[in-house]
Structures are given as structure tokens and as C-alpha cells.
């Protein structure tokens, strides 16, 4: 009999596992895949290391900062700032036709950029930012407001509104067209007010730290252990049945599988009204270059681009990918104390239509990957130096990749649009954490696991 079973060995499940094992619970994490990480995983291909989800860690506050999600996470999991070996971004940019906003981990840069390019909006921007700083994510009653309405009540220049939404939506909006005001504030703080950074070794460093800690505390990690059913009895979870047929008893279950995905696992016939699954999925064209991007004088960490004045955050219609807008990430362009390697990497992420990708059979899928790699990169090099002559290897991440790593319906990268912020379900000892609880990003996911463990699994 376990005190707690955790479904999913992603960031949130591992973090929750550490909290519970630290306080003496008998806990196991059940992971369907053969590897850990969920959306934020890693792989090796033709001798090179790749990250799956991570472009950059958001929420990066400097060593010694006592406030904010990163400081809280370090205290709760008993890590030191240095353990994560985070290097800050060089600087990033948001590029729209006729306008470019640069930002870095010093918020003053962004303020001055807004004031320079949108002088009439500077005061309104400052006012909005002070609201965002004061926003309390635990108590605020305005959480559900439309962020577009709130932002437009301050900022009257539509182009600036679009430019602010673009990075925040790419890095964490499960909802099409708009975000909740609460989510907007959390994302704005995590990207613009706190900042971006990356461990030299990428996401594997964080995952290895988490797993090592979890195991050293006596936690059990079971890979290739997909949950087939959550066994219930009279409104109460009594355990799970694995895909292999084994049953495991537990006093409670904490699931990071996603809201709809978890509800479907319950063997009580899904009495809870079903919620819409997420629709937003990604393709990512990955290019390995023979030189780091700095060799052709490109130093930006992230470039968010959009080729028209209006930014469209919606599932692509008519085509398999929407290449009008995207995110170009260069893992080489962080302030490491040594070069990442002799080669370089450029990753370009765009919205993708999961239905069209999943409908392809094998040969067509492979062909589509090549065709869309070309089109995505062709779109990106309108905004950054043309790196195509430097490419020595390529890979492509599709909605199918997201399904494989996360098990999310529709390959929905940020899960379902409606979140379950308190983590409770219709069963008194089944709780959710991770993407569909409501915190996104690596730091957000870890905080989600910690909070749900504290709130629901450590009180008895």
C-alpha cells in the first residue's frame, strides 16, 4: 500500500514525489514512457543531445533573490541556486512588421524599448506593469477576466498589444485568441519581469537532479508503467491498474496526465461533465549548424516573430502549420562561461494542426516533416540571418512527438484551456497537478507539483 501514487514523471510529478518522499511517505511515480521528463524531456540522435520542450527556463531571478517562483522552488525542494547551473539569456526580441522590442533579464531595457517605439504608450505601459506586479495569483478575483480586454484598457496602440501577447501565448497559453488575466500576469512576470536562462547541460541536468533526489529519499520510479485504470470504490480511489495488468493499492493518487486524460482513466464511468481538450500544438524545425550562431553575428537568445500587424493564436486552418508567426531559439546564445560546443543549434517553433499531422501514414509523415522543415525555416530566416547554408543535421518535432512524450489529447502542448487551479476532482483522494492544474513552464510545473503535494497530500 502506497501513501501516494503519482502519475507521470514530468517536472510536476517528480517535484511532488520529492516533497512526499522527503516527509516520509511511501510514494511511487508511474511513467508510461520509457524515459522521464514528459514535455520537457531530452533525447540523443546521431551522436547529438537535444532537448524536447525547453527553449529557456522562465522565472529566472538572480542568486540570492528571495521572492518569486524560483526562490520558492529551491527552498521547497532543498536545492541551492548553483545546483541548476543557470546561465542568463543574452537578450531576446519580438519582431513585427515595422517594430522590434528587445528585452533581457533587466526589465529596464523593455521599458525603454516601449518608450522609444511607442512614446505615447509609455505611461500606460508603466501603469499596467504596476498592476501586474501587484497581482496576487492566489486570491485575485479578476483571474478569469479577458486579458485582451484588460490590456487594451491600458494600451491603445494595437500593435503593441499584439507584440506583448505573442511571446506570452507562445510560452504558455492553452486558450485560443486570448488568455485569462491571471495567466497573463503570471506569464508576463515570468518572462519580462523575471527572465530567461538555461542550464549549460540543458533540461537533462534538472531532470537528473530531481530523479536523483527523489530516489535518494526512498521514492520509487517505475518507467514503462502506464496506468490503464484508476480504480475507484464509492467516490474514493483505492489504487490503479497498470497496462501490464498489475494492480497497485494507494491511499491517494496525484495525476499529471492532464484533466480529460485523468478523468478517462477513472473506472467510475466519467460522471464529471467533460471539458474541451486543448487544440494548440506545435511543430519545431531543429537545425544543427557547423558553427555557433555567434559566428555569423547572431546573438539573440529568442526571436519571436510575426509577419503581419495582427498576431493569430489559433489552431491552423487549411494548412498543417501556421508559419506566419513563430519562435526562434538558439540554445548557444546564453551567457555560459564556456562555449556550448563547436557546432550550433537553431530551433524554430510554430503552431501546427494536430489532426492533419496525426492522420498521415508513415511515408507521408516523413515527407511532410521534410517539406515543413523547409517551409518553417524559410519563414524564420526573414527575421534572423539566413543560416541554411550552415546546416549539417536536422530534426523535426511534430504534434505526434508531443503525444508520445506527454500523452496529451490532440498533442495539446499546454493542455486544456480550462484549468483546475485547486487540483481537486470529483473523487476525494484523487488530485491533479502539472499543465492542467494551471502552471506552465518548467519552473511553473515544478511549483504545481510542490503546491498540490503540500495542499492535498501532506496534511494528514
Amino acid at each position, binding site marked *: 500500500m502506497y501513501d501516494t501514487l503519482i502519475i507521470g514523471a514530468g517536472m510536476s510529478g517528480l517535484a511532488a514525489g520529492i516533497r512526499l518522499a522527503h516527509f516520509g511517505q511511501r510514494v511511487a511515480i508511474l511513467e508510461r514512457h520509457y524515459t522521464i521528463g514528459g514535455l520537457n524531456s531530452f533525447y540523443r540522435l546521431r551522436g547529438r543531445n537535444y532537448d524536447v520542450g525547453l527553449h529557456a527556463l522562465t522565472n529566472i531571478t538572480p542568486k540570492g533573490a528571495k521572492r518569486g517562483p524560483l526562490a520558492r522552488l529551491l*527552498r*521547497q525542494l*532543498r536545492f541551492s541556486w548553483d545546483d541548476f547551473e543557470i546561465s542568463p539569456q543574452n537578450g531576446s526580441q519580438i519582431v513585427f512588421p515595422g517594430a522590434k522590442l528587445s528585452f533581457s533579464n533587466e526589465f529596464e531595457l523593455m521599458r525603454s524599448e516601449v518608450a522609444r517605439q511607442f512614446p505615447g504608450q509609455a505611461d500606460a505601459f508603466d501603469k499596467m506593469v504596476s498592476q501586474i506586479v501587484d497581482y496576487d495569483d492566489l486570491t485575485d478575483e479578476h483571474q478569469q477576466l479577458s486579458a485582451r480586454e484588460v490590456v487594451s484598457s491600458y494600451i491603445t496602440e494595437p500593435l503593441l498589444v499584439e507584440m506583448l501577447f505573442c511571446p506570452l501565448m507562445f510560452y504558455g497559453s492553452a486558450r485560443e485568441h486570448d488568455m485569462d488575466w491571471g495567466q497573463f500576469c503570471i506569464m508576463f512576470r515570468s518572462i519580462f519581469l523575471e527572465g530567461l536562462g538555461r542550464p549549460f547541460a540543458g533540461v537533462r541536468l534538472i531532470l537528473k537532479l530531481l530523479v536523483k533526489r527523489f530516489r535518494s529519499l526512498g521514492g520509487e520510479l517505475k518507467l514503462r508503467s502506464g496506468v490503464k485504470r484508476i480504480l475507484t470504490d464509492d467516490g474514493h480511489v483505492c489504487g490503479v491498474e497498470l497496462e501490464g495488468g498489475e494492480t497497485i493499492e494507494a491511499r491517494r493518487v496525484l495525476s499529471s496526465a492532464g484533466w480529460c486524460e485523468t478523468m478517462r482513466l477513472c473506472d467510475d464511468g466519467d460522471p464529471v461533465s467533460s471539458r474541451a481538450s486543448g487544440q494548440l500544438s506545435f511543430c519545431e524545425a531543429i537545425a544543427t549548424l557547423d558553427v555557433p550562431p555567434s559566428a555569423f553575428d547572431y546573438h539573440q537568445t529568442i526571436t519571436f516573430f510575426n509577419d503581419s500587424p495582427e498576431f493569430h493564436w489559433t489552431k491552423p486552418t487549411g494548412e498543417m502549420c501556421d508559419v506566419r508567426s513563430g519562435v526562434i531559439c538558439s540554445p548557444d546564445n546564453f551567457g555560459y562561461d564556456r562555449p556550448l560546443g563547436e557546432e550550433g543549434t537553431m530551433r524554430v517553433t510554430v503552431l501546427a494542426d494536430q489532426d492533419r499531422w496525426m492522420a498521415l501514414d508513415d511515408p507521408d509523415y516523413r515527407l511532410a516533416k521534410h517539406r515543413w522543415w523547409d517551409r518553417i525555416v524559410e519563414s524564420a530566416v526573414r527575421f534572423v540571418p539566413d543560416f541554411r547554408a550552415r546546416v549539417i543535421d536536422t530534426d523535426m518535432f511534430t504534434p505526434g512527438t508531443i503525444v508520445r512524450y506527454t500523452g496529451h489529447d490532440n498533442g495539446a502542448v499546454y493542455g486544456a484551456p480550462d484549468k483546475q487551479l485547486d487540483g481537486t476532482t470529483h473523487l476525494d483522494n484523487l488530485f491533479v497537478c502539472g499543465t492542467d492544474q494551471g502552471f506552465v513552464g518548467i519552473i511553473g510545473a515544478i511549483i504545481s507539483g510542490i*503546491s498540490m503535494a503540500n495542499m492535498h497530500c*501532506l496534511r494528514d
Partner: protein
Amino acid sequence: MTKEEIREEVLDILADIAPDEDLSNLDDSQSFREQMELDSMDFLDIVMELRKRHRVQVPEDDYVNLASMNSTVEYLEPLMKDIQKV
């Protein structure tokens, strides 16, 4: 445990929670919240560590007593006086 030993024990818990924090300048009369910016999650942690290490139960209504080092030691003394320091 004597008061001094209890203080050492609380310091050890704080060092465990915040390894990057310099605790040598901690003012025993000032609140932890202000000096270290501890939040409610951290106070829950102090309580959980006390339970884990010494089987001391602090009911939720008593969390207010954990505001500063002085008030914490004062509060814990009757609860921990029979515990042997290891």
C-alpha cells in the same frame, strides 16, 4: 532540549530550507518573514520538519507563534524540553 539547543535545531531547519541564506546575521527578535521573505509554504515546512525530526505537532492555529526566532523558541520549549538532543 534547552532553549539554546532548540534554537540550534530551528537554525538547522532554516539552513535546510534555504541553503543559500546567510543565517549568521539573523536577528532573533525580528520576524523570519521580513528577514528571509519566508511565505506560508515555508512555515508549513518548518512545522513539517519539526514533526519529521522530533514528532512535535504544531496545530495550524499555533503557526503565529513561529514568527521570529524568539517566539519560536518560547513556543517550542515546553513541547521539546523532554526531547534528548542527538
